[in-house]
């Protein structure tokens, strides 16, 4: 088994309370399924959209957000999968895809290659 990070980009919560409720339920169902199949190493954390960017030798500080709303990473999850193909398959169930969001699937580098 290898580890992968799912980075959740963009996607909106829903325009009405009932939509938020429905999206929420889809996420819960998706995580439940991943968990039951033993794919979740760490459910991860949500990230604030704003923040600071410190850059260069000058250590210049700029205020975030740093990308268009649709590209902002809103959170991550650490996944266990057989290989990249399986990790990608798993990400296809993510409800964020139904609301114009995306999942970036990134293999975690291994120590002993």
């Amino acid at each position, binding site marked *: 088994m290898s580890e992968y990070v799912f980075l959740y980009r963009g996607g*909106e*919560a*829903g*325009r*009405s*309370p*009932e*939509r*938020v*409720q429905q*999206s*929420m*339920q889809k*996420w*819960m169902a998706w*995580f439940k399924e991943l968990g039951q199949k033993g794919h979740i190493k760490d*459910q*991860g*954390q*949500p990230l604030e959209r704003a923040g600071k960017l410190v850059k260069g030798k000058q250590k210049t500080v700029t205020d975030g957000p740093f990308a268009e709303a649709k590209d902002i990473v*809103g*959170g991550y*999850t650490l996944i266990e999968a057989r290989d990249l193909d399986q990790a990608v398959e798993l990400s296809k169930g993510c409800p964020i895809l139904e609301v114009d969001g995306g999942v970036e699937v990134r293999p975690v580098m291994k120590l002993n290659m």
Partner: protein
Amino acid sequence: MELSEHLFRHEAGRMVATLTRIFGTHNLALAEDVVQDAFCRAFEVWKLRGIPENPSAWLMATAKNRAIDAFRRERTARTFEPELSRLIQSEWTLTPTVEELFASNAIKDDLLRMMFSCCHPRLPEEAQVALMLNILCGFSVDEVAGAFVSTHAAIEKRISRAKKVLAESRKLFDVSADSEFSARLPAVQRALYLLFNEGYHGASPESAVRADLCHEAMRLTAALLKHPLGETPATYALAALMHLHAARLPARMDASGHLSSLFDQDRSRWASNLVAEGQRFLDLSATGSDLTEYHVEAGIAWVHATSISTEETDWKHIVSLYDLLMTIRPSPVVALNRAIAIGQHEGPTRGLEEIHAIADRDRLANYPFYFAALGEFEFRNGKYDISQEEFRRALAVARNPMEREFLQRRISACEQANALA
């Protein structure tokens, strides 16, 4: 932890009400933005970290923090109450002031205050109901339009006009003033009644949407009953009639998903717990001297709910209740229902006579069940040709696929009966 049903919808009403009390009704849009923002936050956090122990408290605390941010951002751009304006200018007083405004004792009556505010005498009844659905029940404009089988544009116009009226009052309705409370209570009861009816008899083809409207009306009525001034015999009667009707909801569709009339419903599918609850409310409503239309309608619903079949129903009693209802709140629909009850009691010919005698029956020209009732009684009299014509008229004004399907089946029954005759 599971997500309770319609959590966001129900919390939306409470949160918007509290924020509007604080911001003023002219800043309703700001209140709505803060709630949307809090929901987005909840969504981001909960989807990864799970539902917290107490989701309602979590959401209200988030709304409070967002309100503090909103004050920092808007304190120069917007107007608030003079006293509040002064307190939010300084960082020393901002947070404690907002904390106090969100104290559990302070937010207790907010939902009710918003409910009364929505029933402003300058608003037509349909605008009051739309506003309640939008603000207190968290229905988006599209969802309200779906419930009323109307267009997005029409509902948006209705709601935004209503919000302008609400904005002019600046403050939420004060539910602690006895005389004002009692003066507006009938309008609130009426709006809740109409909300329930929209769900029960409305035209939306989706039974789930309609059941939602009924449940929202019941939830808001329960909130009204919790207030000492709202807990009146009329409110109990209203709650009784909602429960007794809602008990029949599960049987309105037969096993194959077709609309089923009261006469054909499988009464074993009626919800006995709701009948019992309705009966309890009906008992509680039987005090004082006021007899409202809600008492009478609850009485009628109670007779149906406790009868084992159409044949065993005490139609004479039902006719007398409709007679009474005609003296309290006459309408062509009430007159039609009275005529149907007479037809059940004294036979189809009498039913037809009574329907033809309805004074303003031209107002029923778009009501499919007016023609369906005529068709039904003609059918029972063996006049299958006339019956079929009436059902065709009903079909022409039917409001959704379920009604059309129901009427189509009656037309087929006429054809079959005619072939056999």
